[in-house]
């Protein structure tokens, strides 16, 4: 990985972190409503994976989709505006947090239905395969999603059709309150790749470098016609499942121990120790992101609400 890519990843992780922290604040201030699922703690996955993607590569995302969205190129202002239901949001305020999409950047959409986005990325991969380019697609999903039939069907189909598709499972140990040991017959979800004759690998999802190694391999394979792969990233969400989750299912100690494994801090330390960047340089990036986030917040807050007279627009397109 070259320095430029590393700095890009670092910046994206900071963007995601600051965006989510701001969203939480806004939620607490009642500026945001609905189901908001924060990505804090998992930033390394979206940022590292998307650092290798082009605008013509597709992703599909989940209910916990802000990170993927930002990493795939969304601007913070319209993203936040969408979460506030503003007319300037990516979806004109129609979609909200769980349905943000930005098809022009190759983000085929967040998806509020667990597992629901997976075959959609598959369709993107299919389109790319049929057009004969070396563009690919990535399906992001959680540990909980691996028990939905649609994910299994998609893995089988991707393998049978040898599609340029990478399944990226973010195993953050829980689906809402349910620990994977209560919901999933295997400990390492990557084991399931065997059932589809594709490579499967489990990596430390809080470590940019581990993710990078795995994704580079999978992308090479996909771009060169080698077919799909499954990468499981073990990680953790710091916040509750959604803003307002009482979190009866885990201890403060558990959360704390994972916060100590902060992916941003870890990458920071790595870059400084390897002299890829100085602490000051990284601090500067963080500060730039804060400025950017302030502007995004201002943009979103000042944006108008959609006009109810337009409510029926776009049920069909012409």
């Amino acid at each position, binding site marked *: 990985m070259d320095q430029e890519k590393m700095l890009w990843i670092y910046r994206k992780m900071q963007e995601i972190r600051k965006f989510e922290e701001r969203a939480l604040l806004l939620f607490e201030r009642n500026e945001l409503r609905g189901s908001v699922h924060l990505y804090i703690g998992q930033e390394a996955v979206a940022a590292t994976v998307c650092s290798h993607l082009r605008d013509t590569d597709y992703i599909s995302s989940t209910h916990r989709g802000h990170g993927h969205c930002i990493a795939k190129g969304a601007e913070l202002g319209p993203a936040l505006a969408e979460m506030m239901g503003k007319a300037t949001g990516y979806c004109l305020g129609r979609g909200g947090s769980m349905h943000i999409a930005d098809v022009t950047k190759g983000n085929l959409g967040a998806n509020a239905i667990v597992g629901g986005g997976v075959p959609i990325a598959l369709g993107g991969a299919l389109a790319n395969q049929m057009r004969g380019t070396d563009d690919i697609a990535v399906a992001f999903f959680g540990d909980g999603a691996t028990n939905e039939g649609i994910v299994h069907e998609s893995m089988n189909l991707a393998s049978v059709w040898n599609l340029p598709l990478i399944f990226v499972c973010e195993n953050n140990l829980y*689906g809402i309150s349910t620990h994977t040991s209560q919901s999933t017959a295997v400990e390492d979800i990557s084991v399931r790749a065997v059932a589809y004759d594709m490579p499967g690998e489990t990596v430390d999802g809080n470590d940019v470098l581990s993710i990078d190694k795995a994704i580079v391999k999978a992308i090479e394979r996909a771009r060169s016609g080698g077919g799909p792969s499954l990468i499981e990233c073990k990680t953790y969400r710091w916040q509750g499942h959604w803003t307002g989750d009482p979190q009866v299912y885990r201890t403060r100690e558990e959360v704390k121990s994972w916060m100590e494994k902060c992916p941003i801090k870890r990458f920071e330390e790595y870059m400084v120790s390897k002299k890829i960047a100085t602490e000051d340089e990284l601090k500067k990036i963080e500060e730039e992101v804060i400025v950017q986030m302030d502007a995004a917040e201002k943009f979103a807050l000042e944006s108008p609400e959609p006009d109810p007279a337009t409510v029926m627009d776009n049920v069909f397109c012409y």
Partner: protein
Amino acid sequence: MSKKSYSVAIRDVIAEEMSRDDRVFIIGEDIAEQGGIFGCTRGLLEQFGEERVRNTPISEAAMIGAGVGASISGMRPIVELMYMDFTFVAMDQILNQAAKIRYMYGGKATLPLVIRGQQGVGRGNAATHSQSVESIFMHFPGLKVVMPSNPGEAAGLLRTAIRDDNPVMFFEHKILYNTQGEVNDDPDFAIPFGEANIVQEGSDVTLIATSQYVNRCKAVAEKLKQDGISVELIDPRTLVPFDTETVIDSVKKTGRAVVVHEAHKTAGPGAEIAAMIMEEAFNYLDAPVLRLGAAACPLPFNLNLENAVVPQEADIESAIKKVLYK
């Protein structure tokens, strides 16, 4: 009588029925420690243990299928769906299996199964988590369809559902969970299916409403009383079976009817009710039966837009005035 919230009323009936009959058990996502996302199973794990209060993987189709299988094998399962929108990932198990098995097997199986969960707008969950999906289950035969509008009836209807030998789709409404009401404490208190509740008698117009719209219509009726309009408000409570008689008797008296629900208007429950009223009481009608339901548009995230899509009190009022030619 005790004062309880809608969610506690539901929880208590589940607990009572589980105590009464050890074939009754419940499965669902996050229903154990968490007590359900909306609290409808809170405390059940402690009371009944994890054998009978079973957290599941996120596998709705298998959950319903397990319910169907356990049911024809002699158990009486309750399956909680976190959102009734998720019936979509389990539709075959509901429509092709649960609904049809007794008939297809020549009546040689019973299928006591309650599929319950919440639906509807009001919490900014947007298009895939705010729908009212009861129409599907009203259309395909073999399922009973229940839509309780307050805590007391949620309790009485749920008890009937759990004791029924047929599959029941039990539609709670997310914004009703915190509403309070009187609940009959009799552990056998049950409201029979197919008996509409005349919420309020009246003589000028029959207003038929389901779920949260029963409450909203009460407010409208109250307001119209001041304008000298007497509204008869009917809550069918169950869409299958449907209490045709009560509705028709009312329309014969009033000569006018308005139907209000949150499901989409097009081909929604109101279409059936309106068409049925026309068939059965045509000569009594002084005006067309009007229907109010969600516009033909996915439910938008933005609250103002959401309100523009589902019927508002003002819409109900003007529909009533319209059938009264006022």
